[in-house]
Every structure is written in C-alpha cells, then in structure tokens.
C-alpha cells in the first residue's frame, strides 16, 4: 500500500517546502541582515564548530547591548558541508533575505563567489581563505581578505626565522612542508623570491591529500636535509600529524613555524597535548587566549541569560577568529550607518564602511587592521604564539614583513589577466 501513502508524504513535503519558504520572508524591517557561511559538517568541520559560535556570540553581544544604532543584527548562518554548490545556494539565500554583507568560508567558495559579489555589490570577507591576489581592492572591489593572506604569512614566517637567526639567513636551509593543493602551493612564489633576496636555501616537501601520512617527508627534513628551519602549511588533520612526526624524529619544535591553519589548540590536542608540541611556533591573524575584555563581556551576557559560557570559548584560536571575523562586519556596518546618518544601508555602503576600518583593536584581539579602497588585506598583520608549558603563549607583537615584495607580486598577478 506504499503507492497510496507516498503521494501523501510528497504532499506533506511540498507543503512544508511552501510553508518554510514563505515564512522567513516576513523578516522585521529594522534588522540588518548579515550572511554567514559555515562548515560544521564538512572537510573542515573542526574549524567550523568553534569559529561559527565565536562569530554568532559576538553578534549576540552587540545585539544584547542594543545593536547598532538601534538596529539589531540578524545573522543567518548556513552550513555548506564545504561544498561549493551548497555554498552558492546559501549565498543566494542571504541575498534573498537582504544581506548587506557576507562572511565567506572556504577557498573554493570564495573563488566561486568572487565575480558574483562584485555583480551584486555585496561585500564578502574571507580571512585565511581565497587567493592572495584578493588583497587588491581595485581588482576585486567587493572581496575583503581582511587578514594576512598566505603570501603575507609566508613572508612573516621568513621574517620570524630571520630574527631567530640574528637577522641573517645567508646559507641557512629552510624546508617548506605543505599540503599539495592550490592553497598549500600559493606561498611558494613568495618563498622562492625571499630565498633569493635573503640568500637562504629553500627545499619544498609536498604532502599529498588527505595529508595524514608524512613520515617520509618529515624524516627527510630532519635527518637527510637537516633543515635549519621549517615552515609548515597544512590543513585539517595534517598539522597534528606533522607535530607527531617531528616529535618522533627528535626535531626541535622551536625550529618549526606553522601558518594559520596549523596553529589551533585542536591541532595540539590531536598531536597528543601541548607537552608534545613544546616550542612549536604558530602564526595567528587574531589574538589567542581569553584575556580579552570581549570574552568577559560574552561570559557576562551568558550569565545574564542564566547560562554557562559556551564550551567553544575554551578553544580560543578559532573562537577568537570568529569574533574577529564578525567584528569587522560590525565595524563596517557601524561606519555605513554613520555615513548614511540613520538611513537604510546597502551592500555598497557596507563596502565603503569596511574600507574605513582603522584602529579597531578589541583590546588587542584584532590586529592593527587598516582597510583602504586599495588594500583589502588591511596590512597583512600576524602575531606569533609559541607553545610554552603546553599552552599557546604570545611570542611577538603584531608584525608584518616584506610589504614591497608582496606588493610586487600582487601587481604582477593583476597584470596577468
């Protein structure tokens, strides 16, 4: 009797669809809609489950304080399983709900939406994703990397090594251990250029997907090549594997620095705890730890609701990046509202507001970001945090390196097309 029941089920499903699609249309006028792409279930879920709550909590904090100029923020978060079609569908949904800006997530997604953002005049932010060329605000007016791109990170990693060796890298051997995908290969051009400039020897070690097997590469770096310094650029599960392997070969962790996606508490835990990674250096584009006023405020907000602060807060690297990501949108919308003097704002206004962001620090959680119509990276600032006593501790202030070399490459890339 299946045949009879199923049309009924189909009718219910169709009814639910019609009902469901019709309901969200009745949104309040005063809310300012921000779209948030997220991956809590896909390839990079370890990041998403921490980062997205961070972003949402910060928006909730702003709302609990009366919102922006009386407007409440309405953040629509849509999970895309790290799949591009789903990501694009969620973007169209944000657009339908009237989003004035979008928090992007994922490099392929960022690429697939780059053209659309400009056509629709909706600014999108991609901290830690997308191409380094996205820093060029003239070429991509509606794309904002807002954090140090892989190029800036590579330059900063070299600078860190240089400082470690007393300001001279001549004749030093630097190994670059990277995930063999476009994102992993992107910093190569910068490293090669800097090798010539600084006179160090560069050798690259590719790790094929899925990146959980790199015993041979690490052994090669540690025993045969005997690198003086290692820069790693890995994603997902692989950073923790690299830490384990370096530990196994007895390589000094203090001679390793990881770019931003190999630098979270989760990576240390997966490698066997902070003690294993003692000395490991990490690059960060947002502050680490909970010693910031904003954490106290969020905890306070939860307390007022009679709840415990969220457990995600303890994983500070990604949580803080989420706060940082949302904070940029909040500031941009604040600037846009100011410019419009209370009038209705559009994506274009938020884009202009974003290009005015300067001097917002959130008590040191945010880098000294300065976005301009030309520079959408905001300077390319990073901070080094080193594992000390099993914990990520601040190893440097915000810094950036070789801006002239990076500028040269961004301009060259713009000419390419």
């Amino acid at each position: 009797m299946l045949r009879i029941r199923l049309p009924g089920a189909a009718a219910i499903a169709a009814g639910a669809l019609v009902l469901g699609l019709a309901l969200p249309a009745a949104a309040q006028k005063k809310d300012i809609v921000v779209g948030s792409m997220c991956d809590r279930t896909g390839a990079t879920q370890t990041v998403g489950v921490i980062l997205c709550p961070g972003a949402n909590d910060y928006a909730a904090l702003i709302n609990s304080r009366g919102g922006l100029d009386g407007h409440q923020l309405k953040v629509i978060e849509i999970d895309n399983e790290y799949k591009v079609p789903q990501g694009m569908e969620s973007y169209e949904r944000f657009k339908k709900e009237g989003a004035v800006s979008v928090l992007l997530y994922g490099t392929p997604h960022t690429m697939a939406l780059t053209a659309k953002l400009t056509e629709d005049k909706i600014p999108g932010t991609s901290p830690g994703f997308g191409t380094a060329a996205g820093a060029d605000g003239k070429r991509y007016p509606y794309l904002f990397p807002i954090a140090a791109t892989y190029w800036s990170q590579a330059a900063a990693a070299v600078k860190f090594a240089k400082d470690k060796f007393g300001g001279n890298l001549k004749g030093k051997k630097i190994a670059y251990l990277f995930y063999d995908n476009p994102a992993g290969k992107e910093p190569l051009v910068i490293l090669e250029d800097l090798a010539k400039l600084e006179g160090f020897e560069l050798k690259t070690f590719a790790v094929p997907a899925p990146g959980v097997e790199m015993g041979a590469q690490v052994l090669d770096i540690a025993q045969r090549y005997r690198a003086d310094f290692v820069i790693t650029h890995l994603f997902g599960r692989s950073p923790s594997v690299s830490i384990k392997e370096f530990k196994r070969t007895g390589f000094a962790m203090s001679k390793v620095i990881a770019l931003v996606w190999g630098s979270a508490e989760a990576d240390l835990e997966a490698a066997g705890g902070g003690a294993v990674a003692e000395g490991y250096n990490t690059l960060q584009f947002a502050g680490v730890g909970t010693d910031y006023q904003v954490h106290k405020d969020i905890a306070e907000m939860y307390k007022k609701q009679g709840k415990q602060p969220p457990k995600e807060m303890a994983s500070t690297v990604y949580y803080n990046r989420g706060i940082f990501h949302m904070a940029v949108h909040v500031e941009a919308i604040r600037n846009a509202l100011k410019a419009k003097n209370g009038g209705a704002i559009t994506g274009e206004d938020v884009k202009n507001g974003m290009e005015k962001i300067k001097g917002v620090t959130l008590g040191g959680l945010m880098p000294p970001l300065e976005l301009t119509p030309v520079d959408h990276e905001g300077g390319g600032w990073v901070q080094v945090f080193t594992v000390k006593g099993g914990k990520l501790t601040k190893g440097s202030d915000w810094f950036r390196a070789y801006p002239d070399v990076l500028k040269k490459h961004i301009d060259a890339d713009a000419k390419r097309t």
Partner: protein
Amino acid sequence: MFHRESGYFKTTYRADQALYPLPIARWTVAVFAVLALVLPQLLTVLSGAQSAEYYISIVNFILIAIVGALGLNILVGYTGQISIGHAAFMSVGAYTAANLAVRAGMPFWVTLPAAGLMAAAVGAVVGVPSLRIKGLYLAIATLAAQLIIEWTINHVPWISGGSQASIEIPRPELFGFVLKEHRELYYLFLVVAVLSIVATLNLVRSRIGRAFVAIRDQDIAAEIIGIDIFKYKTLSFAISSFYAGVTGVLYTYLYGVANYENFQITTSIDYLAMIIIGGQGSVLGSIFGATFVTLLPIVIRVFMENVGVFLFTEQELPAVIPAVRLGVFGLLIIVFLVLEPEGLNRLWRNIRSYFRVWPFSY
C-alpha cells in the same frame, strides 16, 4: 503523467517510433516546456524579483545536476560500467572551456561543445581498462583516473593557469547580452539540460543504446550476438564523459571560475548517489535523482529553521540544523532505497500504474 493507452492505434512506423506516442503525453510535455520557459517570470510574479532569483538559483543547480546525472546514468545505468571518476571529467571540461575562453577569447557556444569533446576523449582513454576489468576493480581504476586528472591539473600550470589552479572566466555572452544573473543563466542551462534529455531519450532507444543495455545485461552474450564490446564500452565512456565535460563548463560559467577543487571525489559520489536514488538506467530517474539530491538538504534546512525555533535556543540552532540535515538526508536515502531499491523512477511508475487501472486495482 496519468493517462491510459487504450483507444490509440498506430498505423505508421513513424507514429510507432515517436518519442511520445500518445497525444496526452505530448500535451504534458508541451505544458512542462511552457512552464519551464516562463518559470522566471512566473516566480517573479508569485514571490517578487528578489526571492525569484533565489529559487531560480536552486533550479539552476538542478538543471546542471541533471546533465551530469544523465551522463553518469548512460555509463553506469545503461552500460553497467561503474565509474567514480565522473567529477574528474567535469574538471577536464571546465579547464578546457576556461582556457579556450581566456586565451582564445572563444564564446560559450564554442567552448561548451569543445570542452565536451575534450572530456569525451579523456573519458574514452580512461574507459580502456573496462575491457579487461569489471565491477569493483573498474571502480578502483576510475578512482585512479580521478586522482591522476586532479594531480595533473594541480601540477601543470599550462592547464591550470598557475599555482592557485583557478582560471577566472568571463560571463557567457550572446549577441552582446551578458548572462550573469541566475534568471539569465537559467535559459542557457535550460537549453543544455533539455538537449541532454532529448539526446539521451533518443540515444537509449537507438542501436547504440540497445548495445549498451546488452553489454550491461550480459557482456559475453552481447559479444556473441555480434556487438563490438570494445567499440561500445569506449563509446559509452566517451558519451558519458561528454555530458560530464558539459556539466563542468556549466558550473564554470555559473561560478565565473574554473577550479578543480569543485570537482573532487565527493562530487563523483554525489552524482552516483543521484542516479542510485533516482533509478539506474532511466532518464526520468536521473532527473528525479538530481532534483532530489539538490533539493533535499535545502528542504530539510528550511523545515528545521521553522520548526527548530520551538525546540532549541538561538545559540543551539545553528549547530543542530546541519547535524539534523545530514542525519535525515542519510536516513531518507536509506528509507527510499529500502522501500524501492530501483529508485524514485520505479516509485513513480508504481504510482502511475496504480492510477492507470484505478479504481479497478485487479
């Protein structure tokens, strides 16, 4: 749709060979065609331009998925050759089109077939092992093809355009009119999807299609009755890859960028899921499968967004929705397959045949 066949007599071969022999079937198709043509306008009238754009974007993804699913169904459903490298052929098409469009400035109506042909050529080569191996072994061989193609694109800058392996492609243009909004691109996708459907419907009832089915059902018997196995297996891979290549181009024009990370093994699996859920060896099944797999996550999410607010707090909801969606999606697929292992197409046929004799079900 629902209709009875009695009372129609065919007096010519032409009438007998028609794609839709019954007038009512022809009328149904005509109504669907008109609906498809005015869909953007219809949705705009019903829900406003802003919402219509969103609904059309979903339809666009379904249309593209239909092309890809049809291609895979020709290979897996009709010829019985397993392939889990379907997405790799899409990336071959995507990069061919992107290179032709950017380097030679070619319009989409050149890049589209050219990319299809390139993918077909690569597909034919990948299909060669199918002559010696079958089933799971062939699956692994096509998996190898997937990885080899991915690796090649990733490491050959001449194809991929640099270390980012992405080529930005201009929006398709026709008579000076640039297609960029979803409701504009819709017509491009619609035309390609309809062409694919009609081509497949005709292919599977031609000599070639019959040969495919013979090979699927029993390849030794097929060989004995004079079917050239080498020719038809390779052909099947080539045709299937042609569709995949075209699918890749459509995605590329939709995103404005060719990027192989969109065409990895998970995409291959998604397409396999479509034809298994929809029904193997069936054109309608491919359409059902593509629609179902594209729509289901969206429907579940929208449902949860509206029902979930009564059960969870604002902070919990974003974490609950993806989990529920994944769970329900998996569960529904199992339920459907248990209820009807031959897919949605069979389910549809059961419903049809029930109403065909209704109310006399004996």
